[in-house]
């Protein structure tokens, strides 16, 4: 059974190359191939590594399927009063040959679910900044497809579960005699509503799973805080997973019952054209209060969620496992796979993450691999490894510094007097020419192209501060600016790369078309848009959807901070180790650059934490399956930055006074040396 997946175009989510999967058989021999396009593909071997990891995770989840199925069958024929009969019945059910067929079907479901996991995973979470953006995220075509396929899979699983449960659930149509015409005696097919209920519940649960998957950012791959063996990680996740599934299934059953009570007649009426109905109808209170039915629906939900979550957890565990990249190529041919090349190249983000994680680990735990980093090239004697690694880390950190500075500039313009919007729109802003066309600065451009009013409100929640000197600002309510913000969410600082002109104008165009209509109004022109806007801003619903969550934009800035944290840790450990291990002094040449980069970043981070909402922590959810660590990555970055500087200063001590640095940085370093930061 070979399954081919048509990937939905080269979208931003399709980071992993197209994958074909082998049969979900226990034997790890399925054909795994990676058709990819493009010249700058990372080494063949790396993709093989990733492919094998995914394949193993899928195989593992398929192998766990019989266990889950057995548990499901045992629990579904629960009979506490006759335990021996219960067990023997359950095993009798399991021995049937049809069980193999259902297992194959369920394996298919698991494979499809894992393909969706692979297609939709991300290492940097996307954080919707307003409720509208969240809705936009959910109704995105790709996500809609995700939801549809998941509800179909849910229905399929519910069907398997219903058939395996036997009892009264196992067929849709049951023979019945028409009670109205007793004399006819013709056996007719009647609808078994229990079966229908179970199927619809499965579809509903599949859809809810998909919805929660996106709302809770479950496609985000959090890397573990400590390295552990895969089995131990899985075992640790298992009790949590079971509890979470059981509780969530309970909530889903409740929601589904409510839904069925009100809307259950629609599918029933549709199917009734084919069959008759068995009394009593289930979309009544008495029908829904059938404990056995509720138990079976709940159990089916638990079965569904447990299988899917196991697939998801295994994928996470396998994908985030540390991979050892060689520092130096063993042969000249395979230089593509080594650490410096992977760090510098344009490989998929996950490979870059793995490379940075490996850099952090090698700098901390492996003296022999550190020695390779500090080594010189054989003919020529250049420290290529160190130069490449440090350059890439420093570039990452500089990017972050710039991103933070731009964010702060945007936040600082809040409340200042702005030139009227027309001038901004008519002529090119002067900022344009000054900016070098660098990736993180693209944000600034997009902001400059927008009406400055919008810009003012985009990046800060303190829009309507009472001491605002700009009358024009106070003219508009909070909602308008944030409405623009909601529309222009693509300008969130996560967005990288130059913007297409089409995109850039998307935000303002809404308003230009509006004002264009009103231009004929003559004198009204100044006040009427304002009235419209203030009118809109007073509508609770609009404010509700368009208001920006102040913390979300801050979280979005740091969404990929895990990379920077590893770069900081790797770099600082390497520099600290170089104090004793660097025989050729290769690190010394870059030490001033590293120090100044770190101190500049420290300055930017310090300033950033003075912004409103930046230093408040979101409430912590302990013991939940859903990972929310991405919400607090900024604190992790701040802590590891400080630790990194301290690591260098405590190792080098007084020697740092000999390092060239500006007076300001010298002063700052002295502070660090005296432990006064």
């Amino acid at each position, binding site marked *: 059974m070979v399954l081919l997946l048509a990937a939905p175009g080269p979208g931003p989510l399709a980071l992993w190359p197209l994958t074909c999967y082998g049969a979900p058989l226990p034997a790890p021999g399925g054909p795994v191939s990676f058709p990819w396009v493009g010249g700058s593909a990372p080494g063949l071997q790396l993709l093989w590594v990733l492919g094998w990891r995914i394949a193993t995770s899928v195989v593992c989840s398929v192998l766990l399927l019989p266990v889950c199925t057995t548990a499901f069958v045992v629990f579904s024929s629960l009979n506490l009063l006759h335990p021996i009969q219960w067990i023997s019945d359950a095993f009798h059910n399991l021995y049937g040959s049809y069980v193999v067929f259902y297992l194959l079907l369920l394996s298919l479901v698991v494979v499809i679910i894992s393909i969706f996991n692979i297609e939709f995973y991300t290492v940097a979470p996307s954080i919707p900044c307003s409720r509208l953006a969240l809705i936009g995220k959910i109704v995105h075509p790709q996500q809609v497809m995700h939801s549809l396929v998941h509800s179909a899979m849910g229905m399929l699983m519910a069907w398997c579960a219903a058939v395996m449960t036997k009892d009264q659930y196992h067929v849709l149509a049951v023979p019945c005699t028409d009670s109205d015409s007793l004399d006819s005696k013709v056996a007719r097919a009647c609808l078994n509503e229990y079966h229908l209920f179970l199927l619809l519940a499965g579809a509903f649960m599949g859809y809810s799973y998909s919805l929660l998957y996106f709302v809770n950012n479950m496609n985000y791959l959090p890397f573990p*805080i400590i*390295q*552990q063996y895969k089995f131990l990680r899985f075992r640790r996740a298992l009790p949590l997973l079971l509890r979470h599934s059981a509780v969530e299934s309970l909530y889903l059953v409740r929601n589904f019952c409510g839904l069925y009570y009100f809307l259950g007649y629609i599918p029933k009426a549709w199917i009734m054209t084919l069959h008759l109905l068995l009394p009593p109808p289930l979309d009544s209170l008495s029908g829904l209060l059938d404990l056995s039915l509720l138990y079976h629906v709940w159990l089916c939900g638990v079965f569904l969620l447990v299988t899917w979550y196991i697939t998801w957890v295994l994928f996470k565990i396998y994908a985030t496992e540390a991979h050892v990249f060689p520092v130096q190529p063993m042969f000249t041919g395979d230089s593509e796979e080594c650490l410096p090349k992977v760090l510098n190249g344009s490989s998929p983000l996950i490979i870059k993450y793995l490379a940075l994680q490996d850099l952090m680990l090698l700098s901390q735990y492996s003296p022999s691999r550190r020695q390779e980093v500090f080594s010189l090239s054989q003919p020529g004697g250049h420290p290529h490894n160190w130069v490449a690694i440090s350059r890439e880390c420093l570039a990452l950190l500089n990017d972050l510094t710039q991103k933070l500075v731009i964010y702060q500039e945007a936040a600082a313009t809040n409340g200042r007097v702005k030139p009227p919007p027309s001038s901004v729109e008519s002529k090119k802003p002067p900022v344009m020419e000054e900016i070098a066309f660098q990736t993180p600065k693209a944000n600034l451009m997009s902001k400059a192209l927008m009406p400055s009013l919008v810009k003012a409100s985009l990046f800060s929640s303190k829009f309507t501060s009472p001491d605002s000197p700009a009358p024009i600002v106070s003219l508009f309510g909070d909602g308008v600016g944030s409405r623009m913000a909601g529309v222009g969410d693509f300008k969130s600082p996560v967005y990288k790369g130059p913007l297409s002109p089409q995109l850039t104008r998307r935000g303002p165009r809404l308003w230009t078309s509006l004002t264009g209509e009103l231009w004929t109004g003559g004198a009204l022109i100044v006040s009427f848009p304002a009235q419209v806007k203030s009118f809109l801003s007073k509508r609770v619903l609009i404010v509700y959807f368009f208001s920006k969550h102040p913390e979300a934009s801050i979280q979005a800035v740091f969404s990929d901070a895990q990379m920077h944290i590893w770069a900081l840790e790797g770099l600082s450990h390497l520099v600290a180790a170089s104090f004793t291990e660097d025989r050729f002094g290769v690190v010394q040449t870059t030490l001033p650059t590293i120090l100044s980069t770190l101190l500049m970043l420290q300055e930017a981070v310090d300033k950033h934490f003075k912004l409103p909402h930046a230093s408040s*922590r979101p409430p912590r959810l*302990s013991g939940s399956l859903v990972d929310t660590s991405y919400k607090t990555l900024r604190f992790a970055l701040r*802590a590891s930055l400080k*630790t990194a500087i301290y690591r260098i200063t405590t190792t080098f001590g007084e020697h740092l006074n000999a390092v060239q640095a500006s007076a300001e940085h010298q002063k700052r370093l002295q502070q660090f040396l005296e*432990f006064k930061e």
Partner: protein
Amino acid sequence: MCSLSLFPPLPPWGQVTLYEYNNELVTGDSYESPPPDFRGQWINLPVLHLTKDPLKTPGRLDHGTKTAFVHHRESIWKRCINAWCDVGVSGVLNEVANSEEEVFKWVKTASSWALALCRWGSFLHGSLFPHLSLRSEDLIAEFAQVTNWSSCCLRVFAWHPHTNKFAVVLLDDSIRVYNANSTIVPSLKHRLQRNVAALAWKPLSASVLAVACQSCILIWTLDPNSLSTRPSSGCAQVLSHPGHSPVTSLAWSPNGGRLLSASPVDAAVLVWDISTETCVPLPWFRGGGVTYLLWSPDGSKVLATTPSAIFRVWEAQMWTCERWPTLSGRCQTGCWSPDGNRLLFTVVGEPLIYSLTFPEHSREGKGQVGGAKTATIVADLSETTIQTPSGEERLGGEAHSMVWDPSGERLAVLMKGNPHVQHGKPVILLFRTRNSPVFELLPCGVVQGEPGAWAQLIAFHPSFNKGALLSVCWSTGRIAHIPLYFVNAQFPRFSPMLGRTQEPPAGGGGSTHMPLFTESAPISSPWDPSSGTSWSNSPTGRL
């Protein structure tokens, strides 16, 4: 094996140990008046005398507002909901079982049965792990590294790893932070800061202090430039995990990344990432909990002792562990050598110090602890009689806590109170140690405090560059810092100014000590242990 019979005589009664110089522990009349020729070398540290009187007694048990309200009997279901929120299922069962005529008879009977079953289960669990039935205060006092946690005015003491700064927990659970360079003494108080059992400063940081409390871990962030003496509780971050209380031990990784926390009630050790507030419970196998955690100075291994006769050593890269189960009692205390290759530990009920070696190469091997198969006995602390000028004195017993200085040259052992020794006063024994090329343990002396003062806890300064600095908290509330001057192998750049400019303040050197414990080296070393291995060969002796 080193035994106590070769210890130098105890200092005369009424004298206090001031410092070590030239292999001699120098005593004086009081801490305030060191010998005049020594004053120039006195380190600038606050010598504290915190007395019990101004402190509030720990009698503030109930902080709630319950007492201010008139008692009103609610309906049974309301009470059940309250009990569910406060205690959980057992609370609800208790409420139902104790209700009169409010519920059906069979409900009441069923809940009494369920309650009895619960109690029986917890009793069974408690009989397997007897310590679980203790109150949490007793639990902390039982496993604490201080001799008298419950009623002494100093509870916990912690040096900052890099600067001359330390934090002390007083009997009322407030924390004071003393700094040698500043007169400001911040006092930390928090609503949740109760029954503090451990403190730990974050390495590679100026200001982060982790506090193990009754129900949670508090992470204080103290701005070192702040002039405030009463930081608000907004500076504290609260970390809690269900089932993980009381927290009795904390350990930061030496590179400042992760924090470990342990509770004698929870079998799992938690690894915390403080900034993202995520925690990973480490897997467990047996034993009712974890009482004491100690991270080796090189960051590669962690010692975790349990209330049962077993202790574990975790390897800190892949987090696998090795267990040492064949002990006669639980592991009381332990300490790591500076390179993390040797662990000294003591066991409850045995007056011995054991040593366990870990090979160097286990650092590269992933997921391997690779400790030695058996532990060797390096010191016998059993009770002996030693001759003093004033007569015979008895010395010895079980060790209560043990600290090794960061350079690996001095080992201080705080003994358990023994009625035959010094009228039950805990004695502090000081040993000289050497780690390479072979392990050596030699007696150095007994640290004595003021008459009537009991040693409460001992700690070494983590970055004292003139030798080692032993801080001793006495039951009178005094914190004494006893500098031990020697040429420190960890700071070879330090030149002993004292030795060149001044005559030794008291007593001549020249004491001839025999090597009392010498481990045979695996390879023949240039340094021959049989001939002239006396202390005078060591760099210290050449002072």
